[in-house]
């Protein structure tokens, strides 16, 4: 039988007594409260236990990479926000870094520091949404609202910085668009001071809750070998025990100036690489990001925040591959320039696209309720998968 292009085989098991049973084919369809964005999974299940969960993507494809070829170098910067609107600053930075590498532009020190502040705030922003919606998918609605409340404070800070709350368009080729407004540094430090104890409170509320840990421990264990084979990155990879972070292992920008840890999954509630590990790595990364922001704000140098870049930007012909650590892991930007004011090709490699490919493998013999936990723990966001 066919289901929109998927050939799903209906199996008939005959037991003694002549009762035939069929597997159920469910469509966890594009409209569902807990697929993060517009995703679809075709599930073949025997009651609650799944035999197969096949992802179906493409519902949020917006041809962003093709649009780059039309709008030009500067014009594409707002579009990069929409590649992953949950953590928009790293996407801005990726495009800016690619263009700067092609044209050999050096960003002033203060501009790099502003970039790091923005990216780390965006990382906290994204992780708050991720852990909040994971708690909501597991059934606890309150931690989600608390996470959104903290996100609102970050939204207010970034709104003062660059004028927008979701599609920031903060970074420009050569630096950033705006310098820190007066009084912003104190507000940011006050927020970090307020936020760090709230991470502990969030943990007391939900992370160590026995029901929550029982739901997540030993579910969908991804071994380190599998994680590397399936090209997982970011907290997904670190949750499986692999200590790899682009900020540490292939440093870019001014990250070598800062002192921060790389949290790695240790299997404290179950096995290394289960859903709980990926979740707790994100919580710990939020703390590390707070550390980085504090160091950044304290060491902020003076000077301009943007280099001189012509309005009619024409980098020399060539190509480059730029990697940076977005909230969802190693984000790769492969940009080809042909010497004109419009890029020839832009290819974005996102962490969620690889993460969704491991869902069929780990979801065999899981329950449908566990599939929700898996999707949430891999932090899939549909705009990143489909672009």
């Amino acid at each position, binding site marked *: 039988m066919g289901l929109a292009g998927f050939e799903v085989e209906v199996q008939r098991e005959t037991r003694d007594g002549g009762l035939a049973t069929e597997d159920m084919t469910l469509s966890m369809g594009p409209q569902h409260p807990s697929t993060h964005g517009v995703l679809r999974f075709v599930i073949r299940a025997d009651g609650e236990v799944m035999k197969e969960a096949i992802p179906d993507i493409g519902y949020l494809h917006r041809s962003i990479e093709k649009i780059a070829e039309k709008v030009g170098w500067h014009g594409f910067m707002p579009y990069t926000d929409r590649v992953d609107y949950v953590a928009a600053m790293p996407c801005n930075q990726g495009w800016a870094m690619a263009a700067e590498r092609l044209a050999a532009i050096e960003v002033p020190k203060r501009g790099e520091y502003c970039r790091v502040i923005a990216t780390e705030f965006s990382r906290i922003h994204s992780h708050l949404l991720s852990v909040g919606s994971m708690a909501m998918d597991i059934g606890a609605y309150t931690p989600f609202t608390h996470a959104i409340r903290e996100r609102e404070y970050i939204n207010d800070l970034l709104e003062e910085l660059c004028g927008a709350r979701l599609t920031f368009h903060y970074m420009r080729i050569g630096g950033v668009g705006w310098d820190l407004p007066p009084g912003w540094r104190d507000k940011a430090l006050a927020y970090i001071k307020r936020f760090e*104890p*709230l991470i502990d409170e969030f943990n007391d509320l939900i992370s160590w809750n026995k029901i929550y840990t029982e739901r997540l421990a030993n579910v969908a264990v991804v071994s380190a070998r599998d994680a590397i084979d399936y090209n997982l990155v970011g907290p997904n990879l670190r949750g499986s025990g692999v200590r790899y972070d682009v900020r540490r292992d292939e440093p870019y920008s001014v990250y070598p100036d800062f002192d921060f840890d790389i949290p790695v999954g240790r299997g404290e509630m179950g096995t290394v690489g289960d859903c709980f590990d990926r979740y707790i790595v994100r919580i710990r990364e939020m703390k590390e990001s707070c550390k980085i922001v504090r160091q950044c704000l304290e060491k902020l140098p003076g000077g301009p925040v943007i280099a001189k870049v012509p309005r009619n930007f024409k980098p020399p012909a060539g190509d480059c591959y730029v990697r940076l650590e977005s909230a969802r892991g190693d984000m790769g930007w492969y940009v080809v320039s042909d010497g004109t004011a419009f890029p020839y090709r832009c290819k974005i490699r996102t962490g969620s696209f690889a993460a969704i490919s491991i869902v069929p493998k780990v979801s065999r013999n899981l329950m449908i309720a566990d599939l929700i936990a898996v999707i949430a723990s891999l932090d899939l966001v549909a705009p990143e998968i489909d672009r």
Partner: protein
Amino acid sequence: MQEFVDGLVANPSWVHYLGAMLAFGGIVVFGFVLPIAGITTWVERRVAGRIQSRIGPNRTGPAGFLQWLADGIKSLLKEDIVPDAADAPLFKLAPYVVMTGFVGAFVALPFGGPLIIADLNVGILYITAVTSLVVVGILMAGWSSNNKWSLLGGIRSAAQIVSYEIPAGLSIFPIVMLSGALSMQSIIAEQGAAPWRWFIFNNPFTFIAFFIFFVAALAEGNRTPFDLPEAESELVMGFATEYSGMRNLLFFMAEWGNLYVIGAIVATLFLGGWQIPWALAEHPVPRVALQFGTFFLKSYFWVFVAVWLRWTLPRIRVDQMMIMCWKYLVPLAFVNLLGTAAWMVVFPHGAPGVPELLCVAAAVLLGLFLRRVRYHLTRAGLKREELSYNILATERIPGLG
């Protein structure tokens, strides 16, 4: 006309009985049960709002008190959608079966000294039996919706409610043994007004039986952490996915009303019901009013605790729920049953001092809990102007500056 009425009073036939019962039933349901369900939703939504750092409904009526009325009228005006391939008779019947299951319990709830519709001599057994009718309704809803997700929800719910009947029933047995009767008013009469006269503090086994009963009753009522049948994140709305308009609202009214019934049963069995410390023999109206108020407060306190649990805890998975029931609650309930029986043999007239000791222990636990609450408040670094002890206040927390 006068002859008709005289004839009615002197010679009531079965038609008159039926008419009177239907009218009375209508009054009870529309005048009492629905407002109780509505007030429960008000408590739930306002408490949920404050727990989540927001305000609940606060526009319709004073402090949002009439929101349920507005929701009810809105649902009545909505389009009634019956899916094409659904089993229409079962689909339409299911909400009413669920409502019957829960409204039937109100008949035997003791709201005050004389305020009970029918003091059945099998009171608590009747209530347990009638509230298990909802399983039939939920299964009907899940199957007839012609939707695999609803079916999953309905089946999960059937497994859940049927399983948790056992620890709930087993936890009631110690109380029945202690009071010697199944009738609700007798159970209350055996308790006293003071906390150490309540059955919950009578002996350590009933103390644990209380918690087992409360957890099992939450599971019966499909409340988080046991709300798998209507797990919003997974099954959109579980067995009620295909329902719209008033039918949908009937399911939810049943859930919230059931919450009140749970609170009422807990207040009756374990907390002394409507007992007040003063006899007030010559002032019947204030006495009954005080008793009704006490009962109301006690049952709504446990409604509040159930709401608080709902907005704190995540959801348990199906197999973990079954493990918890059969491996944890049922053995503990049996231990309580045997323990209470042994206690009654060893101390036929009650152990002196043990209820008072348990009261003190409970107060100590409460004190430790409040200390932990204060710890959370100080760790979050909150200033005086960020706190508000008025739960109905809408004044906003001051911003970051």
